[in-house]
């Protein structure tokens, strides 16, 4: 039941981004907005078992670079499971077995020689519930660069922290209280702090598992805006239960059902003319 239509969105996705981006900000040519999007993440026949229970059945997908890809589907269909395969977070679950092949920029991430810890520095993750470290705002963002040694001086680190917070749209709100605990921020701010923390290590892909499900509509709108902007530099994969959110932020949408990738294509197409009846039923709210 795998539906791959890479050609259908390769031309449409970025155009959408550009058009909408035009309205909100000046374009910088360096941001690479006009380049055609290559497949950043390619998965082939990915199967996941939790012990005896199979959670994913032969998922194959190509996720294009510098765009937002949304995973939708009813609860328990394996969206999070697949997302966690992309940064090998599932390795931490002892009973979880992953088969198949996932490549990022053509390199097999399940290669024995590859260090999953380094992979996770390249593939950042934002979780459903905001989970800042119980440390200062500064330390939250600085932690990643520190352990990876990407900065050499305090000054550089300060810069990285500032840029990350700016990119996450949080700088203006917290610049005067960087030494205060990150846990003291509001839920939406905490989630943006987590996003800043993820981008501080300079990842190429950012995985977001229902990043707005614990937030109110205003905070959600801010995060969505942010996601939209981040897509200029990062490849973003987002799991969401909100059709509107998927429609608003993503260029591609993948619909999962009972562990199968049922349908995958340009967001517009999935929402306007789905080819599978199950997708149709889900989108129109007939089940799930």
């Amino acid at each position: 039941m795998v539906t791959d239509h890479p050609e259908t969105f390769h031309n449409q996705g970025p155009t959408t981004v550009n058009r909408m981006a035009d309205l909100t900000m000046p374009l910088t040519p360096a941001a690479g907005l006009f380049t055609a999007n290559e497949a950043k993440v390619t998965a082939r026949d990915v199967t996941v078992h939790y012990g005896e229970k199979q959670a994913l059945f032969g998922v194959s997908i190509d996720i294009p670079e510098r765009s937002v890809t949304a995973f939708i589907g009813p609860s328990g269909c394996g969206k999070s499971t697949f997302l966690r395969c992309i940064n090998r977070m599932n390795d931490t679950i002892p009973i979880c077995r992953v088969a198949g092949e996932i490549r990022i920029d053509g390199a097999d991430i399940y290669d024995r020689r590859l260090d999953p810890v380094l992979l996770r520095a390249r593939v950042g993750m934002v979780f459903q519930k905001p989970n800042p470290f119980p440390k200062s705002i500064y330390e939250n963002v600085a932690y990643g660069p520190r352990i990876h040694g990407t900065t050499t001086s305090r000054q550089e680190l300060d810069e990285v922290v500032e840029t990350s917070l700016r990119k996450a749209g949080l700088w203006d709100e917290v610049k005067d209280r960087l030494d205060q605990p990150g846990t003291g921020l509001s839920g939406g701010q905490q989630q943006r702090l987590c996003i800043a923390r993820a981008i501080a290590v300079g990842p190429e892909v950012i995985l977001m598992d229902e990043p707005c499900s614990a937030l109110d509509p205003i905070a959600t709108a801010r995060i969505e805006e942010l996601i939209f902007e981040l897509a200029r530099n990062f490849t973003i994969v987002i799991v969401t239960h909100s059709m509107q959110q998927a429609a608003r932020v993503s260029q591609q949408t993948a619909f999962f059902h009972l562990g199968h990738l049922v349908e995958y294509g340009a967001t517009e197409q999935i929402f306007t003319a789905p080819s599978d009846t199950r997708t149709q039923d889900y989108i129109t709210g007939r089940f799930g």
Partner: protein
Amino acid sequence: MTDAALDPGAVRAIDLASDASRARLRRRYRAEARFRAYGIAALAVAGLFLVLLVGDIVIKGLPAFTESRVTLTVTPQLSQVSTDGTTGADALRGGDYAAPLRASLQELFPEVTSRQDRRRLFFEILSGGAGDDLRRRIMADPGLIGRPVTVSALLDDSADMYLKGRLTGRVERTGRGTLAISGATGDVTLDSPGAFRDTLATIKKALRDEAAAIEAAAGRVAQRLEALPVGDPRRATAQAGVDADRSRAAALRARAAAPEAPEVLGTDTPSELVAVNGGIVKLTSIGPSQAQGRVLVPLGTAGTVSEGAWRTITLLQPEGSRRLTDQHIAWLEDMRAEGLVTRHFATRFFTSGDSREPELAGLLGGLVGSLLTMFVTLVLCLPTGVAAAIYLEEFAPKNRITDLIEVNINNLAAVPSIVFGLLGLAVFLNFFGLPRSAPLVGGLVLALLVLPTIIIASRAALKAVPPSIREAALGVGASHQQAVFHHVLPMAMPGILTGTIIGMAHALGETAPLLLIGMVAFIVDTPQSVTQAATALPVQIYLWSDLPEPAFQAKTAGAIIVLLVFLFVMNGLAVVLRRKFERRW
């Protein structure tokens, strides 16, 4: 997946107005009220016992924190305080510093000449260590020799306990009416119209009570006698005993029945002392208006004194069953009346080691022993315990072997402490040949005892750290170990420290294993290192509790107070740590 399940008929609304529903509500309220009442009752009972326990210990232990001294003016002679007539440090150290104190006491009570009285005055009123303070002062400044020096000399433990009112009940009254005394020394007659009537009545009542008690006991024996077969030889002897008791009781009753007849005061009745004209008379026989007495401390003059210028002191505990005679007490009362007796905070209790003399015994040895032991325990336990907990909780593969280890750690936590003591005896002393009674071995044994507690508490603390923090760290590319050491461990630290402190508090109060490895010896010197012989605080309590002197009983309770204070402080520290590091996430 959607509208398959809910059949609207399956859900029935609750009829809140129905009787059954109201009754159910009332039942629920009653059950809740009952539960609250049980809880409060349980708390009240627990609180009551706690108050009783702590109150009892505090009342018993307070005397341990003060000591009585007598202020004496002494003129130390070189011949007394120096062994060879020079003022070299060695010569001065060996000197007899009690001698000038004795001379001063002799001046205070010049009438004391008999061997027995001198022994009592010099060795049973003054402490054996009374000269120590004077030695310190003279060694610091030999120029004091030959000049009058005011010293505050430590009193013996029995004298101290008497002055604190712990040796006998004591009732003091101001004398009623005038009092005529026939002499200033020796045996005297005291006349005072009606002044002794009350005392006499009390004595007569005591006689009546005693007669009744004897009669009751004799009656019981007589009843059991009836059960014996006629002709049993025991019958005759028992009957004789009963008859003797009955006649004794009859005699007592006869004495009690004559209210005006004088009574003789002996060593088995409460003592009556009369303080008058700067001296003390002990009454030997008492009538309503006249008493015979013996002078214990000479009076300034004989003759008649007016109302209110004399007082009586009743010592409720009969002389025969207390540690100080009336003579001792008369001297103490006299010194007290002259304002020579002072009460001081007993720093000695914290700064000296154990001693056979209660007034000289202190906690320092036990305290230092306990500290050294705790130090060894902590150094061994904290790193091993935390490391074991981290490994087991975070890194160990989950298999049979780790399961087995886990079960056995839990088992170890339940092993009685005395078993660890036996283990320590067998392994550390007999096999490895470590020194007996040493804090090192005590610490090793207690470490075994505390280790499981620390491991279990640390694992619980690690487990309580929310997984989202671990995921967050892994998500930014931290390795498992980095996630554990940078984030999980710091968040678990308050829990780990709390567990450690509670474990250490447990170890601090532990006695049984220390007894087995020989930390129970009588040790005067304060240990300087972990390999020297030492006791520990709870062992010191155990040792003192075995001694008969009432002063040691007070010391026992005092040491318990100190131990409890330490435990409270440690537990308080645990609470503070938890509060301080507790963060919400």
